[in-house]
């Protein structure tokens, strides 16, 4: 089960609304390498993880991603408050506004709505951990791009925190992959199919 804490993992206090910035940052809410995809990916994959260390790791990182989703939501919410119709039109925010007003909807910066096609749960520890390592790097690149596009320090500070978390998660997943490959025997030296087939009689 999950229990909520009425606080953010890292503070978000943005003085100046900026709908232009909100339109790119929303990709980390509902985009291809965003926090919603990350949390669903890890919290789904953990059921088929074979080792205790990996069950713990996927549970913990998946949970932290939900806190990051909340931080991104808070950033979007604060960047889009008190806007005039003129500001909405000038910033190009009108295309989002017409469908969602200033509600926070999981969507990519390009306008594509969130889809589970952004993530995979393959049921194979080696395959899934490689996806996770790639996912952390893709999210880190997205945060790098946001930092290239956004100047306001009130926005940059929480984004920099989130970027650093991708780097730490990548490191932990790398250690998880090492733990998994260390447990493979000599017959599985090339790291394929480590858990499924051994529980079944091969009949092909």
């Amino acid at each position, binding site marked *: 089960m999950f229990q909520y*804490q009425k*606080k953010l993992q890292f503070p978000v206090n943005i*003085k100046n609304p900026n709908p232009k910035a909100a339109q790119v940052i929303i990709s980390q809410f509902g985009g291809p390498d965003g926090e919603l995809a990350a949390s669903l990916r890890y919290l789904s994959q953990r059921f088929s993880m074979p080792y205790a*260390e990996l069950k713990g790791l996927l549970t913990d990182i998946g949970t932290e991603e939900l806190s990051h989703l909340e931080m991104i939501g808070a950033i979007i919410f*604060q960047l889009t*408050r008190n806007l005039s119709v003129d500001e909405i039109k000038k910033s190009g925010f009108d295309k989002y506004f017409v469908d969602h007003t200033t509600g926070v909807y999981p969507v990519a910066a390009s306008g594509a709505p969130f889809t589970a096609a952004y993530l995979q749960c393959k049921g194979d520890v080696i395959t899934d951990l490689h996806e996770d390592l790639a996912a952390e790097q893709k999210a880190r690149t997205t945060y790098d791009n946001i930092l290239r596009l956004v100047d306001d320090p009130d926005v940059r500070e929480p984004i920099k925190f989130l970027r650093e978390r991708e780097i730490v998660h990548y490191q932990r997943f790398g250690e998880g992959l090492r733990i998994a490959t260390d447990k493979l025997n000599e017959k599985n030296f090339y790291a394929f199919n480590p858990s499924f087939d051994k529980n079944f009689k091969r009949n092909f």
Partner: protein
Amino acid sequence: MNNREHDLLRLSAVQFSAWELHMYLDTHPNDKLAKERYKKYMAEYEVLLADFEQKYGPVNQTTSKGNAWLSDPWPWDISKECEC
């Protein structure tokens, strides 16, 4: 930064230190030094959390009394001082 923000930042910093060590211990379950540090930060966190909840209202719904859970601010609200 008002008192609540200051106390919240301190609580979050200590909680984050404990969390980072907790996650490190997932892949290093036999690291004794990390376990000691985790315990130290968790003890500090428990004290700060109890103090914070007493001053400003519930962080966990399990410690909420009456309608305190519904009181402002919510985590996504901008702090009062910031409302310019």
